[in-house]
């Protein structure tokens, strides 16, 4: 606990004494206020863009929602500023729900373009609406007050702003270091892997979108009471771009990068605005030229930002606590010897346009059985996997698990039934530790939500998830690598991490897509031994593999596909001598 809070406490104490230093120029306090306000918005962007991979150029508009809400309510209706705070957050969060429902559905580059579009649209809306004062905005907003203390000058509202920054940073870090946080962090690497373990990716995206918007709304609310006025200019498209710039400068993946980036950019802007006009004949906005050039240079030379660079230079390494493996999660209810096959595939079919990738394939996997799916490249093995796990919807046929029909069920539902998988092309989050990656596998076995995570009420739940992850890592023999970043492991080890992650589901059926590829001989033997142990413990395994020695040794039964069609099925011994199989692999004998 202290390990985590010590640096923050020191920072908070430092920030608290700054305005008390005698002779501190008031202008510097104003700058610090601006840094705090920008840091709040950038922090939301860190979660949204750096962590969640959703680029938004429109965050300034959410500041506008926050600022205008309090401006209208305090000036026209005489409400107390403290009462308008929840309303400001509600309005910006509500706007985020509406825009988010549209925006998070956008794929790839349509997303940032969409945010540019509504960013500009909302800016014009702010500047044209009569009750928002059009271009002139709203003035005469009352200051914040506690009792008789009115926060009129920069030195007092300074505390309100920086308390907000510190609390937000703490909540954001808590959120990232939790079950929900792992789901958000997995988003940037695409949705397929996360969904295979039960993460509702659209919901996770919307959540982080709303959170970022509310941080921006908070910044806007503070801004309105700091400036005591609100007009459209600070909420336009260029402000939105500047916030993204701040996040990129600081380090888009790091909560404190937002604060650092805000400091760098706000101070740099100030310096540029005061000195550039002396160098050139001064006609405003010269700093944007330098900003633009710096942004490009930064992307070319240091795309990860200043914060990680700074942290890499620290003499000590951040402390990591080993999870207590004595804690256990409740095991899955296993139906006692259900009649019929565990997995039954009946005339499954998948067409991509004119190509039939899987052509009426039928086979079964029994309980406690290792079945191998083999066939030459392009035979439809991985497509079959994707049909079973709900990544692709079948064009025909039925797939059932324990007698329950699962065709067209989304991946999350399939995962709930106890079907876990690995991927042919490893899908781990490279900048997360092995432990965190594996813990994603246990996503469905935890229950803590975003708010309890932010408030750290999720610790018992979280400790159990991490304990389970640590146990599975130990089981696959990667305990020494538990704290390493997944991206730093060899490809073979990454495949083993994927197996550990799948085991965290507590599956009844394990689907392994080429698990032995990239493994050394000894590692393959260890993997085979592990899979046998799992089978003897009651699990079924369906695996796709090209290493024939491995397959023949391990599998109880083999299904052979060629050009999407099942050409043979049987024991390893029978398959080895099957003429059709030999023909498919080696070609016809002339």
């Amino acid at each position, binding site marked *: 606990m202290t390990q985590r809070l010590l640096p923050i406490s020191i920072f908070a104490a430092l920030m608290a004494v700054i305005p008390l230093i005698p002779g501190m120029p008031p202008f510097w306090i104003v700058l610090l206020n601006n840094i705090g306000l920008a840091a709040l918005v950038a922090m939301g962007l860190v979660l949204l863009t750096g962590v969640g991979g959703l680029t938004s150029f429109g965050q300034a508009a959410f500041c506008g929602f926050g600022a205008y809400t309090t401006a209208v309510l305090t000036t026209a209706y005489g409400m107390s500023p403290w009462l308008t705070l929840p309303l400001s957050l509600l309005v910006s969060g509500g706007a985020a729900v509406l825009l988010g429902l549209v925006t998070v559905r956008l794929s790839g580059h*349509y997303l940032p373009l969409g945010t540019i579009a509504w960013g500009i649209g909302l800016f014009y809306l702010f500047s044209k609406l009569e009750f928002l004062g059009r271009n002139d905005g709203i003035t005469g907003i009352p200051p914040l007050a506690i009792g008789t203390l009115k926060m009129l000058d920069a030195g007092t509202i300074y505390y309100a702003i920086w308390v907000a920054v510190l609390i937000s940073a703490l909540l954001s870090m808590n959120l990232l270091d939790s079950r929900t946080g792992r789901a958000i962090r997995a988003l940037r690497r695409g949705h397929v892997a996360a969904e295979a373990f039960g993460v509702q990716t659209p919901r996770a995206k919307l959540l982080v979108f709303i959170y970022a918007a509310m941080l921006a709304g908070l910044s806007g609310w503070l801004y309105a009471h700091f400036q005591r006025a609100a007009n459209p200019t600070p909420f336009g498209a260029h402000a939105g771009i500047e916030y993204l710039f701040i996040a990129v400068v600081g380090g888009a993946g790091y909560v404190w990068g937002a604060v650092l980036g805000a400091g760098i950019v706000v101070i740099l802007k100030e310096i540029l605005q005061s000195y550039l006009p002396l160098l050139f004949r001064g006609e405003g906005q010269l700093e944007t030229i330098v900003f633009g050039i710096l942004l490009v240079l930064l992307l070319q030379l240091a795309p990860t930002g200043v914060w990680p660079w700074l942290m890499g230079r620290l003499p000590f390494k951040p402390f990591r606590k080993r999870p207590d493996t004595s804690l256990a999660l409740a095991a899955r209810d296993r139906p006692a010897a259900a009649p019929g096959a565990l997995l039954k595939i009946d005339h499954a079919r998948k067409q991509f346009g004119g190509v039939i990738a899987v052509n009426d394939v039928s086979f079964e996997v029994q309980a406690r059985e290792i079945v191998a799916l083999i066939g030459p490249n392009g035979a439809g093995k991985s497509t079959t996997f994707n049909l079973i796990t709900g990544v692709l919807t079948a064009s025909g046929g039925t797939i059932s698990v324990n007698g329950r029909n699962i065709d067209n069920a989304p991946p999350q539902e399939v995962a709930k039934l106890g079907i876990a998988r690995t991927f042919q092309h490893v899908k781990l989050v490279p900048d997360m530790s092995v432990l965190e990656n594996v813990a994603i596998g246990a996503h469905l076995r935890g229950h803590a939500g975003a708010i309890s995570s932010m408030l750290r009420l999720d610790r018992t739940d979280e400790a159990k998830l991490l304990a389970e992850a640590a146990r599975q890592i130990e089981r696959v023999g990667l305990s020494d690598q538990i704290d390493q970043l997944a991206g730093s492991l060899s490809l073979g080890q990454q495949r083993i991490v994927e197996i550990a992650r799948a085991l965290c589901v507590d599956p009844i059926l394990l689907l392994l897509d080429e698990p032995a590829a990239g493994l050394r001989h000894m590692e393959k033997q260890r993997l085979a031994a592990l899979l046998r142990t799992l089978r003897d413990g009651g699990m079924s395994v369906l695996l796709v593999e090209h290493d024939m020695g491995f397959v023949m040794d391990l599998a109880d039964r083999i299904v052979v596909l060629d050009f999407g069609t099942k050409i043979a099925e049987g024991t390893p011994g029978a398959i080895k001598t099957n003429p059709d199989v030999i023909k498919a692999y080696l070609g016809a004998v002339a």
Partner: protein
Amino acid sequence: MLCTIPNIGGSFQLLLFDGQRPLKATTDPTREGERPVLNTTIMLFLVQDGITSGAIYALLGLALVLVFAVTRVILIPQGEFVTFGALTYATLSTGNMPGTAWLAVVMGVVAFGLDLFAGRRALHLRGIGRALAVNILLPVAIYALTFWLAGKNTPIAVNIALSLLIVAAIGLFLYRIVFQPLAHTSVLVLLIASVGAHLALQGLGLVFFGAEGQRGPAISDAAFTVGALRFTGQSIAVYAITIAFIVGLWLFFGLTLYGKALRATAVNRLGARLVGIRTTLSGQIAFLLASVIGALSGILIVPITTLYYDTGFLIGLKGFIAAIIGGLVSYPLTAVAALVVGTVEAFSSFYASNFKEVIVFTLILPVLVLRSLAAPEVEEEKD
């Protein structure tokens, strides 16, 4: 007479009507209460106006599609090509020396430095000579020519040619300096870099051309009337050039080997390189074409409407909306979409002039959603 709509930071004058007819009442904010009734004549004017703006948006949309298809760059600075082209042309027409010529030289020097640095392990005389010719001699020659011709009361055609040359050089160097070093990165990184380039170029635009708006001389003073509608030579030129570019690009990409090579680069850079396509050259050609198209659009509209240093951004974004409706891949669809955007804009400036921009920019959202649903992201991109 143009309809002027008050805007933030100066006034953005719409590309409305042909510059002759006083229809100011439709959008004059002081007379908002009395809304003129839409009759056939006004409707025809609006349609004609929408098509003229739409044609410009179509040109820009085409350039955006072209650049995206080849380099995966979403070209936000396209608007600056428009402004630079228009204001360079307008400045030359007044007999002054445009700052953009100087910018081309500076960017050329930086590009030369990058070329030398990138090739530092294998420097040979021919390579240096070529880099010197493209990056130093070319912009210096353009600068010298401009300097020599400025103030000589040159004919319009010469001014147009000079403006196009200057902006083309800037476009070429922009690719070399900003995007070529990032060519291997994700669409998102390229987009952020693109926004950075936009900021820098727009700031430079303010330095070069000042905060005042400018107008340029018309390409042709010819005009004729069909029924109630009046067609100027300028608007005919807009239509003709747009159609020529659409057909030309469509043929180029569909039929020529080089066009196909450019498309191959777009799909898979590594694959294209393996079959011998020089991906850098493809990017340079795309940017060259885009900057020429952008500058030409600017030159076409600057006689009709006053352009400010930051006007291009908004015009470019409207081209974007068209390009996105076309899915960033289809040229004919982009052209049709641009006409729709222009017409919607013309009609919304008639009915709700205050909310014109809001309407035009919100138009994009349902389109984006439909696009995303129609082509869901198959799998993530590595960053």
